[in-house]
């Protein structure tokens, strides 16, 4: 399986840049997710790889083969569409066989390949159905099988699960991840759903306004966001504004206007700089009375007043007042606090990230 490389890719629509000088390398056999809000350029990037949009400048390579100047049908790239795009006038097996016929494959071999493709996506027995006679999930599988039977060098998946209901979506996520593990196709997966990206990806590329904001493993993207955009896009995040007071190595001490002092991770910062500290709700740790009395007056331990406590089943969603800052926190249902109480909380400096404004 070859790798895919995008070099200085630029695509503009009128005055706005859909892809702004993108450099990206998808490793051999890797599943890379392009993640971002709508309009971030992820779908445009995907369509550039298969050749449905012409580039202003830049090149795309599969291995050493330059593909950016050859037509889509000759690139060896498979695509699964968001709305499946099955051909309604063909049966399931005709849908799968079409690409194989174009390859001039002998008939008995086509039949074998189609059967194989249907068994991969567990749709044996539906060969002669028309797409409209299938459920959304089944159509999705047919679309996947149609791309897979051709054994493309690169597989592209354009929000393939966004039209399915929640339960099915979760199930298909794991199935796609499983299929990927099994066949090891170099794959680009486009989604705006961060949970999906976390579950499925080897690496995630977060895009905004056509630019690459961060490229890394799901853990890196979530726990070590490189900038405010990534921190804000992934999960729920509280932002607390302040000024850098001190820097030591990879850590910075930040003082807010109301006198709160926080330590967190942050690189490339300068003393006195305006920053925002990103706090994830699940990283707010509630200290018991015992822990609180044992803890030295250390950094990142605060008194907080609970202004709202909402039971949501698996956890309690709190709204806390720390000095003048209002933040959300997630708490264990077994130690329920009520609104109006004052508690001691701690936030691990490693779980705090400090970003330039």
């Amino acid at each position, binding site marked *: 399986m070859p790798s895919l490389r995008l070099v200085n890719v630029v695509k503009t629509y009128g005055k706005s840049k859909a892809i702004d000088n993108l450099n990206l390398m998808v490793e051999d056999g890797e599943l890379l997710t392009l993640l971002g809000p709508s309009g971030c350029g992820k779908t445009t990037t995907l369509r550039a790889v298969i050749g449905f949009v012409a580039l202003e400048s830049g090149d795309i390579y599969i291995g050493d083969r330059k593909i950016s100047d050859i037509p889509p*049908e000759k690139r060896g*790239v498979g695509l699964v569409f968001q709305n499946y795009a099955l051909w309604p006038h063909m049966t399931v097996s005709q849908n799968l066989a079409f*690409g194989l016929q174009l390859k001039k494959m002998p008939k008995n071999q086509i039949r074998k390949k189609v059967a194989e493709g249907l068994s991969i996506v567990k749709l044996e027995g539906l060969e002669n159905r028309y797409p409209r006679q299938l459920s959304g999930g089944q159509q999705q599988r047919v679309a996947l099988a*149609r791309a897979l039977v051709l054994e493309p060098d690169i597989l592209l998946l354009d929000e393939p699960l966004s039209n399915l209901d929640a339960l099915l979506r979760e199930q298909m996520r794991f199935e796609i991840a499983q299929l990927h593990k099994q066949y090891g196709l170099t794959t680009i997966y486009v989604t705006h759903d961060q949970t999906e990206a976390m579950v499925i990806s080897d690496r995630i590329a977060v895009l905004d306004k056509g630019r690459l904001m961060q490229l890394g493993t799901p853990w890196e993207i979530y726990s070590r966001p490189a900038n405010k955009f990534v921190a804000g896009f992934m999960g729920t995040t509280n932002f607390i504004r302040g000024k850098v007071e001190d820097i030591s190595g990879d850590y910075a001490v930040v003082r807010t206007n109301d006198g709160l002092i926080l330590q967190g991770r942050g690189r490339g910062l300068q003393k006195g700089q305006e920053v925002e500290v990103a706090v994830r709700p699940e990283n707010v740790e509630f200290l018991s009375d015992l822990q609180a009395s044992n803890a030295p007056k250390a950094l990142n331990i605060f008194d907080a007043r609970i202004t709202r406590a909402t039971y949501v089943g698996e956890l309690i969603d709190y709204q806390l007042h720390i000095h003048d800052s209002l933040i959300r926190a997630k708490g264990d249902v077994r130690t329920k606090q009520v609104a109006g109480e004052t508690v001691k909380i701690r936030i691990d400096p490693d779980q705090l990230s400090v970003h330039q404004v």
Partner: protein
Amino acid sequence: MFSKKMLIVSLEIILLVVVFLLIIWPMMSLFIWSIAETWYWPNTLPQKIGFEYWKQALGLQKSLAIGAVSIVPAFFLSLMIAMIVVVISMLIAIPAGYALAKYRIPFGGFILFLFLMPNAFPQQPVFVNLLHIFTKLGLAGTVQGVILVHILVGLVFGVWITNATFKSIPPHMEEAARSVGAGKLRAFFRITLPLAAPGLLASAVFVFITSLDEFTGTFFVGLPFVNTLPMTLYSSSGYNMQFASVIAIILLIPSILFMALIQGVLKAEYVGGMG
């Protein structure tokens, strides 16, 4: 007891009667006229019925009555003209409709509007001018000239309906074909064209019927040398009601057959999956 069901049933009956009066009754009257050999005022129904006029019209029996000629040659001429018009119109309409639907063509909307022009103006002045031009070109009074006029009138249905049809086919259909290795042409012929078939057929039928029924243009450009079925109908209608009724019914037959054909095709399985 006056229930809701009864109300619905009685409304249905009223609707049926209205439909009957509006659509079936005029046709009935046509049919009765076509078999009325003798029918004088104040009789409600013909005094003598028979297929004399049908036989005359179909050339099975000679008659010296005014307007009574065999319509068989006119019928075949009309059919031939209509078929040629359909073929040429669709050869223009399919690429034009496709291009206007799929590509960003400058003034695309205006080009579509241009096809409407021959039908948007009063037809007589348009065709009087056309006769003038056609006379210079030597096309007046020729079958080719009449074919050109019919194309001019029918192309609006050809281009507009094919354009709407191609617009209704999602671009993903062709892109999916490209993604499995089909070139542009193959994607069009194997995917888009079959998906568009019902719409294209509908458009062809409209062109066909338009040509079959075309009157004004043929009247100015074709007469007296090109006698299509509507021309024959016109020349006999003033003198011979029975004969005119026969022609009218014959003119209706291809239209009804084609309508039935569209109905059948539009109900085909895959249309439901489109969209």
